């Protein structure tokens, strides 16, 4: 399984400036990858192009055998007429039922499963939203700031759990946290503004997994590479 984009060019209708011009990159194998870049550079637009929510672009997206590509973002809400637990029960495919409890536990949400979505904190809401996406049938999931408002320790626990549970799935994690993407991601796609050539630079991340010791020097080196690429 591989994923590649070639010569993606896009601008919003009536806008004078291009968001992307001849953007190309390739993700060679499944894993936890990142899309990194300054605000306004087009990360969300790019995610929507990948998942087909934006269709008016030129260029080629090759998804290999991947059929279901999902995009989730941190402002999504669950309907308020039933509890989080009931909602999850209703929208989880039978094949994924066994994973639900494991994820709820790992995401620190066990005691909130009976609550309504609006009764949760922003961080808890984002975690619930992410769980329901993780329990769908998909080959690629784009997580747009999906762990915003979650404390660092819990975020780390969640990222490691996702990597453990879904090793053969493509993830594209959109984040502004350079330490996080450098530490946990396999490949980091650093997106730059449309005037820069190339518009995307791929940096190899440290791709840490559970129980692996952090090599601080290597991590700092990766962080520097990411920062240099984005500047």
């Amino acid at each position, binding site marked *: 399984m591989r994923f590649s984009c070639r010569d993606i060019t896009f601008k919003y209708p009536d806008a004078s400036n291009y968001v992307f011009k001849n953007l190309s990159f390739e993700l060679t194998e499944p894993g936890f990858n990142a899309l990194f870049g300054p605000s306004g550079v087009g990360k969300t637009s790019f995610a929507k192009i990948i998942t087909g929510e934006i269709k008016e672009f030129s260029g080629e997206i090759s998804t290999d055998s991947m059929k279901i590509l999902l995009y*989730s973002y941190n402002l999504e809400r669950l309907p308020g007429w039933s509890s989080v637990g009931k909602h999850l029960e209703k929208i989880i495919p039978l094949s994924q039922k066994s994973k639900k409890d494991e994820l709820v536990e790992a995401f620190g949400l066990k005691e909130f499963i009976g609550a309504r979505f609006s009764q949760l904190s922003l961080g808890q809401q984002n975690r619930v939203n992410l769980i329901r996406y993780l329990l769908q049938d998909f080959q690629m999931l784009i997580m747009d700031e999906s762990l915003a408002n979650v404390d660092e320790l819990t975020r780390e626990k969640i990222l490691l759990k996702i990597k453990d549970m879904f090793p053969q799935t493509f993830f594209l994690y959109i984040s502004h946290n350079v330490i996080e993407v450098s530490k946990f991601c396999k490949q980091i796609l650093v997106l730059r503004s449309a005037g820069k050539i190339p518009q995307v630079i791929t940096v190899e991340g440290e791709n840490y997994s559970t129980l692996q010791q952090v090599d601080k020097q290597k991590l700092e080196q990766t962080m520097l590479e990411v920062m240099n690429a984005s500047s």
Partner: protein
Amino acid sequence: MLLHRRIYQFFIIYLMGVALLLLLKYSLNLSDYVIPSLIDIWHTGIDVFVRYFSDVMNTLSVAVVGQIVSLLLAFLIGITGRQATWFGSFIKVAAYNVQAYPIVAIAPIIFILLGDGIATRLLIAAMICYFPLLLSVLGIMAEPITEIEHFYKVTGRMRWQLEIKIRAFENLNKLTTVIAGSATLAMAGTIVAEFIAANAGIGYSIRVALYQSDLAKILIALFLIGMTLSVYQGLLEATGYAVRKGWARI
């Protein structure tokens, strides 16, 4: 709570209106024939209360049925017209244009065609109530709740019933206000119809009182209309609150 508030708000406005009339009467030294005294109003009230109350109930029953009919129709058309298709756009444009035409102006035609019976009153009440309702329902149903609907769309779970449920749930407050507000329109529509040509209802009684130049009777009719409408709207709001409480556990 809502019911009490509605009733005392009406009382305040009604008493202010009567006080203003009395102020005019005594400052301009007008006769009891033009503006009756408080005693006259009281005696007229005792005389006509039972008859007028029955008339108001008659009018209210037509208004309630008219409101239900227009609500059903508004939801049916609003749900059909919510989509960004040519049919949806056509319905929206048609609704905006037709509602610009004063329904009262075509009321005489309806009386000529259908006579002065209950069907005509019902039709006019429903038509006056319908268009503002339709515009509100269309506005609510055509506005996507992206942050909730996105998940269902990308996972292929979105059905039209779910879309309507989400939009209705998210706009329950607005819908309750619109439905309670449309009660006034339905009542006004029925009274206008009765005033024009019908042979029953409080609008008809007001028309008779007008021909007799009996302001006291008109004031009693207004009092009963206002009280009845306040109670009805209060009940609608309380029902809306109960629905919200039950559905969303607020």
